[in-house]
């Protein structure tokens, strides 16, 4: 019988080998797939038992904690805290038991410590018996600018509004604020029913506090789009330089017979002003006429060079600002409106900041980014951002032309923002800008949106420190509603960096 017993022994061996192979498959090769199964209750619970990484605002050279996990007394779980709730909510987003947004979502694998680049740290922690820890994410946000931005937006009569500030030479996002905002601390509860209730309240709020207006909402750019139109005119040679005169009648009759007038029916110089004067006075007829000469596809090309018509990830998703190719969009009568930022043009406050950033940086548009560096547990460097060029919007010469025109907007006594962003208003800080007062709604029935795009020019060989875009929904005249917000942010930022 021994031969048969040996065969049965082989069968037993085969059964154990199969079991060993299968548990190796489950516990070594399929772990990621099983961890990603929806409803995996262990993976879900785990996120509260480790200290999630901290999010820092690093833009002023200091480290300000804007999101951190703190242990709950008497338990072994951690809860997320946002020390400056509403101010940073559009940046940090939230981390709830049901989902995440903002940096909490885009940098989740690093914050949660599951990123492959943290594998060595996690393994060391396992061996030394220490607890697994998420990585620290340091953002480009300047606490001074961010705080000033939120406070200025909130102080502006309760209009929905948003602001983005960029470092033009690197693309670092210095401020990203939206009003009204929400307090992410209210969403960190571990009680599902309570979270549901708060979530429903926020979603039902007519003021849409969860909407990140700085990057997720589009508004008509209004006259601020004239930055693009004049860039296209200089670059294509349609206009030689800022002193070149352009046709600027009080009433421009369009090919379809409709009339285009300046704001308030204003007269624009002598009807043939140099383009620089048409720009500081923001004459619609001059730029409407230029738009017809340039044609819609050329305008759209130049808007693309400024970063429009394409999605952007900073790494928060930014909705594309657009000159849409709707039916009949090349009709010259409509192109006249496209050229002055009306018709179907739609931009985010982020895009407004990008207009100025490109001009401030000699025509080179740097790719906006939020994550400056990622630090592993023990503060070892895991990732550090290298600035990259998004596009060459215009040549250095053309950028210089546009900059000189934006200078006049705030410095010429007749400039649209001379009173609100001129040297008297800024306390001596030079700000170059462009206002926009965008008509919107059906038959332009809504209150105008106030728009302001601006930057502090570089001096003494130093690059421009900051560019800002602001949109105040229903704020009225751009120079009055939007420009003071930008000025407040610039003052705060320069104050922190002097």
């Amino acid at each position, binding site marked *: 019988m021994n031969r048969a017993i040996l065969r049965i022994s082989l069968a037993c061996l085969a*059964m154990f080998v*199969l079991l060993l192979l*299968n548990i190796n498959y489950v*516990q070594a090769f399929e772990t990621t797939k099983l961890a990603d199964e929806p409803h995996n*209750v262990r993976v879900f619970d785990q996120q509260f038992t480790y200290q999630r990484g901290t999010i820092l605002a690093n833009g002023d050279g200091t480290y300000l904690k804007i999101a951190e996990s703190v242990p709950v007394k008497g338990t072994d779980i951690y809860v997320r805290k946002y020390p400056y709730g509403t101010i940073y909510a559009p940046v940090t987003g939230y981390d709830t038991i049901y989902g995440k947004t903002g940096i909490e979502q885009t940098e989740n694998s690093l914050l949660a410590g599951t990123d492959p680049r943290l594998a060595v740290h996690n393994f060391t922690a396992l061996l030394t018996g220490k607890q697994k820890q998420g990585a620290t994410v340091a953002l480009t946000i300047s606490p001074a600018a961010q705080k000033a931005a939120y406070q200025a937006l909130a102080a502006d009569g309760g209009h929905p509004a948003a602001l983005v500030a960029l470092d033009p030479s690197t693309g670092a996002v210095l401020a990203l604020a939206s009003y009204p905002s929400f307090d992410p601390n209210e969403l960190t509860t571990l009680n599902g029913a309570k979270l549901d209730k708060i979530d429903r309240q926020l979603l039902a709020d007519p003021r849409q506090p969860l909407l990140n207006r700085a990057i997720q909402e589009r508004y008509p750019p209004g006259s601020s789009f004239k930055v693009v139109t004049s860039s296209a005119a200089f670059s294509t040679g349609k206009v030689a330089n800022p002193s070149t005169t352009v046709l600027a009648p009080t009433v421009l009759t369009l090919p379809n017979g409709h009339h285009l007038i300046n704001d308030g029916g204003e007269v624009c110089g002598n009807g043939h002003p140099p383009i620089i004067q048409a720009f500081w006075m923001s004459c619609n007829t001059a730029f409407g006429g230029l738009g017809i000469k340039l044609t819609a596809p050329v305008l759209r090309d130049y808007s693309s060079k400024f970063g429009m018509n394409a999605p952007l990830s900073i790494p928060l998703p930014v909705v594309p600002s657009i000159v849409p190719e709707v039916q009949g969009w090349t009709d010259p009568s409509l192109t006249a409106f496209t050229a002055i930022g009306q018709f179907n043009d739609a931009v985010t406050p982020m895009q407004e900041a990008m207009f100025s950033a490109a001009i401030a940086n000699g025509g080179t548009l740097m790719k906006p980014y939020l994550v400056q560096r990622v630090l592993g547990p023990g503060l070892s460097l895991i990732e550090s951002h290298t600035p990259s060029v998004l596009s060459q919007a215009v040549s250095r010469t053309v950028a210089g032309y546009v900059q000189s025109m934006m200078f006049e907007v705030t410095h010429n006594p007749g400039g649209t923002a001379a009173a609100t962003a001129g040297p008297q208003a800024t306390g001596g800080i030079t700000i170059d800008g462009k206002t926009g007062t965008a008509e919107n709604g059906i038959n332009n029935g809504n209150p105008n949106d106030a728009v302001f795009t601006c930057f502090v020019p570089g001096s003494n060989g130093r690059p421009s420190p900051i560019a800002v875009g602001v949109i105040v929904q229903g704020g009225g005249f751009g120079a009055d509603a939007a420009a003071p917000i930008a000025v407040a942010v610039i003052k705060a930022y320069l104050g922190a960096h002097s």
Partner: protein
Amino acid sequence: MSLAARVDQPVPMPRGRRRTELVMLLFALAVVLLAYGAVGLGLKGKLPAGLPVYVIVFAILMIAGHFAVRRFAPYADPLLLPLAALLNGLGIVMIYRLQESGRNGNPGYLVSPVMSTSAAKLQLVYTGVGIVGLVLVLVLISEARVLQRYTYTLGALGLALLALPALLPSSHSVVNGAKVWIILGGFSIQPGEFARLALAVFFAGYLVSKRDVLALAGRRVLGIDLPRARDLGPVLIAWAASLLILIFETDIGQSALFFGLFVAMLYIATQRTSWLLIGLGLFLAGTFVTASLFHHVGERFTIWLHPFQGSNPLNASYQLVQGLEGMAFGGLFGTGLGHGQPYFTPLVQSDFIFTAFGEELGLVGVMALLLIFGLLVQRGLRAALAVKDPFSKLLAAGLSFVLALQVFVIVGGVSGLIPLTGVTTPFLSQGGSSLVASWILVGLLIRVSDSARKPAPQPIQDEGMTQVVRAG
């Protein structure tokens, strides 16, 4: 001849190796002690209050087992007892860990309706009963072959035990949907666990006496010698019985073990591959037919093939998915005892206890467990190979094989290798019947290994002193 003269024999006596057994047993006890401490530290950050009592009682039981082996089976394989003790001890540790954390991690709530708040204590009591079973086997059965006398008695007893739950009313036979129990008063046993042992003895006795007939060749088909048709009777009866268990007791695992045991022993006795093929064919056919006829059998296959499909993870395959996710969560090194969440898996203290080890001890831990089981099986098969008496040989081989098959069926089931069927994990699962039966099984293997390694009886007289007496 004097005693001194015998000691001076030139032929060396095979050593009993009882000291090896004791050292290995102490090692196993140390592992259990450390695991127990780790559970306390993992769950509450301090050593469990009952630690000394549990460990001392467990150690006394195991060392009592050791002395019983020393006294009644001095030449037995030195590894069998320590391996079984290690598994038993780790099982109690895991049951304690599950009892302490409670349902979904809420201490004070039972992990499952069939788990009491003193499950670990009960398991320790069952361990005591198991050791008594082991000692009784060693004391009452001096040689395995004495059991051959009770071939048909034990066969009848085995069948009766197997059939009893099916015949009893549900109130006296159903726990958690499985109709495999006998419940009398507050006391319940799973007779199938003992029936398997009784039937192994029956098969061994029956096959040893009939193997010459069963090995006779009939017609030759496709190069395989088929047995004669009239000899098919016993295998058909065994097959029918296993199908009946399957249908009336909704217990696929038990039926697979029962039928696998029979076919393997038939093959060993006759050495005819045709019996294996016929057995396998009958099993597959029976399973296929019942799977298509009975929903509860068919569903097992659906769960096995599509555990993550649609809403399966939340309903039909919830238990399997929880077990798999638990094992995967443990990964290579596990969460550490007391640090995982095995309590999310229904019936984790019995059918799914292996996944709890996978989660908390990791791949390395469960590979070690499988190797311990494998070693136990290997030592049993070794005894079967070495022993001379055919009945003992067949019994030991059959018992070792069914132990391996049981591990394969349950571990393969919970890890998704084969369709899941509810059988206990030997020595690890909560529950007295399985534990006591497992100890009796190990007792029988110890007995056979003792027979196998015992030195041949010395001649009473020296050859030279023999007086040849011739009949005049």
